[in-house]
């Protein structure tokens, strides 16, 4: 014990003296983040996507559900830059309206799943008493068949939520809950595995020996070190949420059927793959770009939060 303390102390002494005045931690994080080209680019792309889908509809004159049957199946033109679909609805308007739902659902559901997953994972990994029950719970959720589970959720909560929050918010909450509750388990298992290994590391022992409380231990020492698998889960989680949302609408769980989302646009267009390949291209590109930009954002964020890299 004392030996280790001494080594740590000697190590600290040998560190180079700081040349610049101390900065606040978040400022340092931002400085580091800025130098990460991929993260910056990802951030910009992500902002552009968010702006387009949320502000675009205010500028763009077409309604995503307006049917102009004479203009159906058109290719790109000046009036319809992305063409029209089989009922003559403007694809750009539908992409923007669909993006609102997909981005909102994707991000919120991913955050919910990450929160649940990290919480369960950290608690199970850190507290030996909780490990058994929490992991058996995870096994249970992994084993439950997804479709019947979702159908039961609709049955139990659709009308109650609709009455409490109005139809649109109600459905949004239901979808986010449905996706979040059914996709936190991998994150939990991954985080727990890492925490199990981490808590036996020397720095945890060191922190404990100077009297760090459990709460502090988790937030200051454990969480920052499991950030990278969480970030990967986040990127994969967004794609998963966007695609799952489109699956939900086939069960009658999602938004009304004339309401476009990226996942549904992609699915509907698959039948027309040979005649109108561009219809598949746009939603596919939008989903991929969103996921890619979040991935780079995550990469940059992780690097920026890692003091070892930041210091260099």
């Amino acid at each position, binding site marked *: 014990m004392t030996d280790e303390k001494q080594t740590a102390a000697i190590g600290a002494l040998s560190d180079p003296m700081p040349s610049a005045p101390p900065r606040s931690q978040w400022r340092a994080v931002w400085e580091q983040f800025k130098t990460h080209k991929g993260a910056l680019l990802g951030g910009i792309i992500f902002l552009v996507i968010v702006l387009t889908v949320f502000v675009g509809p205010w500028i763009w004159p077409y309604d995503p559900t307006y049917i102009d049957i004479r203009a159906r199946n058109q290719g790109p033109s000046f009036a319809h830059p992305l063409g029209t679909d089989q009922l003559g609805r403007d694809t750009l308007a539908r992409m923007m309206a669909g993006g609102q739902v997909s981005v909102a659902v994707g991000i919120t559901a991913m955050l919910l799943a990450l929160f649940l997953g990290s919480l369960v994972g950290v608690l199970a990994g850190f507290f030996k008493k909780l490990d058994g029950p929490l992991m058996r719970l995870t096994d*249970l959720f*992994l084993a439950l068949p997804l479709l019947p589970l979702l*159908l*039961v959720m609709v049955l139990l909560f659709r009308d109650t939520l609709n009455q409490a929050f109005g139809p649109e918010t109600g459905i949004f909450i239901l979808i986010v809950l449905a996706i979040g509750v059914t996709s936190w388990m991998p994150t939990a298992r991954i985080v727990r595995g890492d925490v199990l290994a981490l808590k036996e590391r020397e720095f945890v022992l060191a922190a404990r020996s100077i009297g760090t409380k459990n709460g502090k231990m988790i937030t200051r020492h454990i969480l920052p070190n499991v950030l990278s698998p969480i970030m990967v889960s986040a990127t994969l989680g967004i794609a998963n949420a966007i695609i799952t949302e489109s699956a939900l609408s086939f069960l009658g769980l999602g938004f009304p059927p004339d309401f476009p989302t990226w996942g549904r646009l992609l699915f509907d267009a698959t039948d027309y793959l040979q005649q109108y390949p561009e219809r598949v291209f746009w939603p596919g590109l939008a989903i991929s770009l969103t*996921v*890619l930009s979040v991935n780079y954002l995550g990469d940059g964020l992780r690097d920026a939060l890692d003091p070892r890299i930041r210091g260099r």
Partner: protein
Amino acid sequence: MLTFTVRRLVLAVPTLLFISLVIFLLLELAPGDPMAQVPLTVPPEVKEKMREALGLGQPVHIRFVKWLVQFFWIEPQVLFDHVFGTTFAEGKLRVLSWQTRSPVMDIVVQRMPQTLWVVGMSYIIGVLIALPIGIYSAYRQYSIFDQVGTFISMIGFSVPTFFTGVLLIVIFSVNLGWFPSIYDTTHKVTDWDSFVGQLRQLAMPVFVLALYNAAQISRFMRASMLDNLNQDYVRTARAKGLGEKAVVLVHVLRNSMIPVVTVIALGAPQVFGGAIITEQVFKVNGLGHLLIGAIEANDLPTVQTLTFIFALLIVVFNIIADVLYGILDPRIRYD
């Protein structure tokens, strides 16, 4: 470690019983009716009779106990009979599907070959591709290789298989005519030509699934390697003159495997669960197709049995993962 494994295995029994009960109640609660696929021309009185013939009139707890007995007592007897030629299970009622009126386990066994060929092989290939890509991407972070790999894996993950599958069919079946678009489950491998035929029909579904699996696993591999490459012990290893190969492939890799082992163990049961969408696109008709068909037809005995087998595998693979943690990092102790 041995006592831990034994304890976990013993503990798994009540866990599984509990899971099977929850699944049963969930299916009971879920809206749906085995008569949903019966044409509307069949009058309601006849449908009611058909429901009774399926045993739907009985109370929930009786049906659950019946299923338990059939699955845990009679089915093992059938297996025993099959292996040793005995007749213990003769005349006893097995778990019967409501759709086909035949034993569920027979259909499961029938579906195994194509599921293992397609989904199993794609998983193995996916893992074998993902590990080197993940390792090298991390080792040469932000190199061209890493960027391209990131790009491809993100596309592989974010573009759903219902699209990639159809795209491949249009290119390789319709336009080029290289591969069949429909998987032939009656195909038997007897000689070289039929083996080539099997590879041809495997090519597209395996590619689609392998891409998807590899994308996911390689991301975790890369992230975990990156974490460890900056650790002090790496510097120490290098400083004491170990070769780069040994440093990366022995020290860093071993310490980076914990999340990857978790992900692989989480994915392995999915192999048996089948790949619903890919199976549908290529008409593989494996276990995934069986499950989704049973859910759509509200064939509760089939759904219950399949989901339970799936639960069993999940529990077993998670135990395997936990044991592997202990081997990879001896500091992890469970007792």
